[in-house]
């Protein structure tokens, strides 16, 4: 399956993060994503990053905040993120163990060491906000 064929498809999927600066640092400096868009409008900041091998897709790093949400809703969303209750995310890598060693050396908080199963290798980590990622080795 080739990427970026037509002009249709999913362009941005957003994560809620507790602090956009911290999240940008994590995704850019630790995971190696690139900054795609960083636009401020008053208190609001539209911030997206991109995996270097995936130019057709942006990962949004957003904070739950007014005026999109009332303060009680924003608080609830911050709690949900901090509890690790947001949906699972999957990062596909060529070599899970090598990526684990590299990211761990950079201070990424791993929740699961690489495990062999079903003919692949997977590990788990969290971003500083609490979003959980599975890191899965691409099947050759």
């Amino acid at each position, binding site marked *: 399956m080739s990427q970026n064929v037509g002009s249709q498809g999913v362009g941005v999927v957003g994560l809620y993060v*507790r602090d956009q600066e911290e999240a940008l640092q994590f995704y850019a400096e630790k995971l190696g994503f690139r900054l795609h868009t960083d636009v401020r409008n008053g208190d609001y900041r539209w911030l997206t990053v991109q995996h270097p091998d995936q130019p057709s897709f942006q990962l949004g790093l957003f904070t739950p905040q007014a005026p999109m949400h009332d303060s009680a809703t924003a*608080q*609830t969303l*911050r*709690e949900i*993120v*901090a*509890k*690790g209750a947001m949906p*699972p995310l*999957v990062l596909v890598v060529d070599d899970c163990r090598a990526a684990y060693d590299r990211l761990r050396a950079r201070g990424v*908080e791993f*929740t*699961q*060491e690489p*495990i062999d*199963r*079903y*003919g692949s290798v*997977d590990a*788990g980590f*969290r971003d500083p*906000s*609490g979003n959980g990622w*599975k890191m*899965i080795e691409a099947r050759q």
Partner: protein
Amino acid sequence: MPGQDPELLRRLLRAKDRMDAASHEEWPVPRLAQVSGVSEAHFARSFKEAFGIPPHRYLLTRRIERATFLLRDTDLPITEIAFQTGWNSLGTFGRVFRDVTGESPGQLRAREKATPHRRDQVPACILGAAHRPDLTIAVSEKRRQDAGDSMNGSQETEVP
């Protein structure tokens, strides 16, 4: 109910993650409290408020989940699975497993092996979590309820 501090929740999540990563180990409250950086007195209450069940019961669900996985996807003897998932005795493992899941480890293994699946399409730990026992009540309470259910009908009026 007022919410909890997200910063505290993030640290409580760390304790939960540590239990997830090593559910076969012992996780007494002082150890968990230290991981979260909160006082022991605070920990159990905060954890339950955050995740809906007390930490020791959460650990139990993870052990059952792991045992279920090993029963289904390996040929390890049941004794070995009991010890690998943190039980000190096969008897306790078998009894708690049946209380929680409704069938013995051997029954579950036989049933799962007879069922085709496509598990390699879903990340394993997520699938495992989806099949984790939903232990909203204590095991002792569940045992009482199950015993009560099997007698239901004739004794309904005696239930307070």
